């Protein structure tokens, strides 16, 4: 595998972050930590918004979110992702798309 930092890719993008109002939330963090063994969100999010901490905890930071919907659909067993679009005008702003 070729090492690459997703941050370097996201750095090229334009965002208007709605500070303090994340549009995606983990419903029950304890489920991620103690029940979900697979934690696909930490692998398959194309913007690397979900991080697996060493202790099993999953941390979500939506600033770089591309609003694709993957994390919501992929969490099939626990349906633990509360997913909305950002407020109008906020979030990713594609220059080219």
């Amino acid at each position, binding site marked *: 595998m070729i090492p690459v930092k997703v941050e370097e*890719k996201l750095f090229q993008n334009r965002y208007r972050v709605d500070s303090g109002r994340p549009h995606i939330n983990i419903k029950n963090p304890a489920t991620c930590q103690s029940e979900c063994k697979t934690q696909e969100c930490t692998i398959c999010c194309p*913007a690397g918004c979900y991080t697996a901490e060493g202790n099993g905890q999953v941390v979500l930071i939506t600033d770089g979110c591309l609003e694709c*919907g993957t994390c919501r659909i992929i969490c099939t067993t626990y349906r633990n992702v509360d997913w909305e679009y950002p407020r*109008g*005008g906020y979030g990713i702003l*594609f220059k080219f*798309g």
Partner: protein
Amino acid sequence: MDEKFDAIVVGAGPSGNAAAYTLAKAGLKVLQIERGEYPGSKNVQGAILYSKALEEIIPDFRDDAPLERHVIEQQMWVLDDESYVGSTYRSAEFNKEPYNRYTIVRAQFDKWFSKRVQDAGALLVCETTVTNLIMDGQRVIGVQTDREGGSVYADVVILADGVNSLLAKKAGFHAELEPKDVALAVKEIHFMPEETIQSRFNIAEGEGVVIEMAGKITQGMMGTGFLYTNKDSLTIGVGCMLSDFKQQKITPYLLLEQMKAHPAIKPLIEGGEMKEYTAHLIPEGGYKAMPKLYGDGWMIVGDSGMFVNAVHREGSNLAMTTGRYAAETIIDLKEKKLPMSARNLALYQGRLEDSFVMKDLKKYKNMPEIFHKNNQFFTTYPELVNRAAHTMLTVDGVDKKTKEREIRKSFKQRRSLFGLMGDAFKMWRAFE
């Protein structure tokens, strides 16, 4: 905004724009709501524009639409780790006006389309997210937005809100998407001088090449890669089924990075300046995964209705066509002064059934399943095809007949003759 409209269109992608344009042109009072800063700011495509669907809505679109290059050559590559076997189709036909397909850049294209929609008389409100449908019993009577006092009403609401289709889901019209019914695509845009693109791809000014790729680049997942030429940029991306990403635990941007490093691809993008990285879902479940498309006071068009033909990489054209059909249905009912009830809106389904839209989707209805169950199409075959080409093309003193026998043997070893015939049969049945 306590005004009432004839129709509200949620979304300003190709489906929403086609619907709003058609309605406004017929003189209906239309409100279109888009959550992005401008139309296109949330949207992602490869992007190939098929002329026909747009021509039927805006015949003179070529006059001022932001078109990148007209496509004169289509390549299909089957890749192994270090090599690829490719086919090229280039035709002088494709180089005759009016051109049949173009590469586009969606943010620019959607902005242009939206300008035409507004010129036709529709009212567009951007930077506004529709949060819920307003219901009166079973009937949709309007939408709630995230603006203050943001409820608006209409006789009918067209849901052109794209693949995630949150609104219909919240209203209980359909269930959550399954990972096996959507592909996740990631892509980048790389800028370089026009002349560099022209010499690298052996094309003249204004001419374009598209390359579709399958094989090792998807690391065993069901999916494809693509490389398209724009005027002074290239888009490169890869999309695979979400169920495969989930099961095989593959990180999308690592997959893309690996693909970019392939010895056949790397020199084509060399020296480009990467200016944007995007990700988007594509609804690829096909006919069998389609949701209910209309009800009392509402209709679904475009990606939110699963209108994508994955085999032929058609999406935006189906979006525009379904948007137009929905609008024409509404116009018909208005003229006859009929209510926008489920019963009357069933005419939309009828229009779809009679057209290429449903005919094509039905024709390929078994494709997703076939590919899901037969991942050799994405793993074993590309490898074998490349090895076969290598064997045939290496001059090493072994006669061709012996080589052919060896190739046949290697195919059979990896997959039984019965399996091979079964695959051919399945493909034939799916395309037939």
